[in-house]
């Protein structure tokens, strides 16, 4: 049964990783922007969730959508007002700009919420099946994250806006010639990326003690997952997240917990060499 428990642990962690990375992957794939702000957006989502539930006394099912919408608007505004001005520049410029924004946002979070860990303590218990324990809060977090990820997948595949985003990802010049307003699509995509970061932040608030310093860790995970799964692809983020969760779990068992985080980066290096488009990515998005 221990093996089953290890697999379940890895899958649960992988589900959270997928949710963390999907917005980052979308922004990178469509906008060609390595969004260094992503980790701080996740942490901001977590703090807004804590604030809504603990300080304002609102129920979680109201707070989660409100936080996601708030961060969508924040992301949309950032892209429209700042990033769109430098989109024609080399990738290093947008990377530096988002890095600067990350420093500002992270320090503001530190200033407002302090570095003392905060948690949304829930007592939902755990389900036990054939000796395998699955915490209910993790199942809930995974379900919400999974549903949102599927919704995003559906949006990209079947809605007009989604098709426009895909078209811009494939060929922005051709998309512009077809009448798609590129700046709006950019802003919408960045907004959706922030929305997904906020959703991950809500899950993070349920699972982790939240501190502003977590942003760097989440950004690093999102980066690895994107490379593993392939850029700009929702299924790629899921595959990358689950693979990373399982590899870190197995790494803990085989080599010890001190090597767990290194295992992810080693795997990333291997994937870059062997599968430049990622495990579930498409050619042309290396």
């Amino acid at each position, binding site marked *: 049964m*221990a093996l089953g*428990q*290890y697999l379940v*642990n*890895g899958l*649960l*962690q992988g589900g959270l990783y997928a949710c963390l990375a999907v917005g980052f992957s979308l922004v990178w794939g469509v906008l060609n922007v390595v969004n260094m702000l992503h980790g701080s957006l996740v942490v901001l989502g977590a703090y807004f969730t804590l604030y809504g539930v603990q300080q304002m006394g609102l129920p979680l099912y109201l707070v989660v959508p409100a936080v996601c919408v708030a961060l969508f608007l924040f992301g949309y505004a950032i892209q429209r007002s700042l990033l769109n001005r430098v989109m024609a520049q080399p990738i290093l410029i947008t990377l530096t700009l988002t890095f600067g924004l990350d420093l500002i946002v992270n*320090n503001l979070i*530190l200033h407002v919420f*302090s*570095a*003392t*860990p*905060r*948690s949304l*303590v829930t*007592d*939902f*218990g*755990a389900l*036990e099946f054939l000796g395998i*324990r699955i*915490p209910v809060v*993790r199942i809930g977090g995974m379900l919400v994250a999974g549903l949102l990820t599927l919704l995003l997948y559906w949006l990209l595949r079947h809605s007009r806006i989604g098709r426009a985003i895909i078209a811009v990802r494939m060929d922005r010049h051709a998309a512009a010639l077809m009448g798609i307003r590129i700046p709006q699509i950019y802003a919408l995509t960045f907004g959706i990326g922030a929305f997904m970061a906020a959703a991950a932040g809500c899950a993070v608030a349920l699972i*982790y*003690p939240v*501190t*502003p*310093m977590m942003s*760097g*860790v989440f950004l*690093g*995970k999102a980066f690895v997952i994107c490379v593993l799964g392939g850029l700009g692809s929702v299924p790629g983020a899921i595959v990358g997240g689950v693979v990373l*969760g399982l590899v*870190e*779990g197995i790494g*803990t*068992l085989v080599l*010890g*917990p*001190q*090597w*767990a*985080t*290194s295992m992810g980066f080693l795997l990333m290096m291997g994937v870059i060499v062997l599968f430049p488009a990622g495990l579930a990515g498409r050619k042309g998005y290396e």
Partner: protein
Amino acid sequence: MTRLKIVLAAASLAMMGTVPALAQETLRFGAPLALTGPLADAGAKAKQGYDICVSAVNAKGGVDVGGKKRKLELVEYDYQSETNRAVQIVQRLINVDKVPFLLAPYGSGDTKATAVVAERYGVPMVAASAATKSVFDQNFQNLFGILFPNSMITEGEVAYYKKNAPDVKRVAVLALNSLFPKAIAGDLVESAKSHGYEVVFNTIYSPDTTDFSNVLTQIKALKPDWIYATGYTQDLILIRRQMADVGVDVKILTMTAGPAYPEFADNVKALAENVTTNSWWHQNAGYKDDFLFGSSLKYNEAFRERFKRDATYLEAAATVSCETLVMAIEAAKSISADAVRQVLHEKKFETFYGPVQFGKAGQNDVNAALVMQIQKGKLVVLAPENLKQGTLAIGVPPAP
């Protein structure tokens, strides 16, 4: 143009006279602080400890240097929890700000790295939060540590459990891969083995670990009676929660040093019950302090009035590192590094934190290690006997 001339003239006057005159009135301690980065929480606590010391010293007129009172001032910089930056800042404090005395950055690792610079320039530096023996084994003459060695903590703790929980035989140890946690975990393993415990698991985890479920599943399979975990407070909170997630139940769960801070219980609520910890100080310690605060309890009252919460050993150690330095300067009647260093080496300081006497290596080697347990949401002192507030409760709450 005229205005520019006036400004320039005023500036030159200030350079010639006013600034040196002001500088003479003030005594400045250099303090590299971890205000951002992974150690930001500990850095903020250290700052509170220093600030309350500076306010208390200035409230009684300042530092008495050979009959002349000087206002105490901290020259602070945020070293962003990065060791290299801490080293650069200490160099800056000595060479640019010309501070005559230093308070060390947070933790054993950063203290050890910056102590090299302080030693090179002969500037006395008092460390509030370095307990690892290897920090003090470099034969430095300018480094003084307030916290007594880890081994005193682990020896006292293991002896306490041996006596009060005789059924506990198997111990599992999990520590963050960082200088202090690794060192105290190593000392605990040594102490446990020497008292006849079977160490069934002993490993380290990397910083930035986001999931402990698998390592806890491994530990669960080994059926330990006692789990000892040490690392950042946020890691210990996650470990305690994930213990409940994977269903690890033990007789004793000890964590260093997170449960000594109120946020640990705030973040795990009912799961905090019966978690034990070890500490260097507690407000109920009952030590007298005729120099500044009166006693341990009065220090805590002053702290609570200002910061709206109880002080932990961390803030207390920061305050007392500053207080000890002030006491040494007053005893030396001089701000000469040589004179103050000599006093620091020779004198025994009676403070609210307890007696402080720096041994040959520069580390405080008097005081009593505290064993504490969270009972009904509050920290209760279990040992030493003279400070005891309650008895050991066996078993942490089972997984829900």
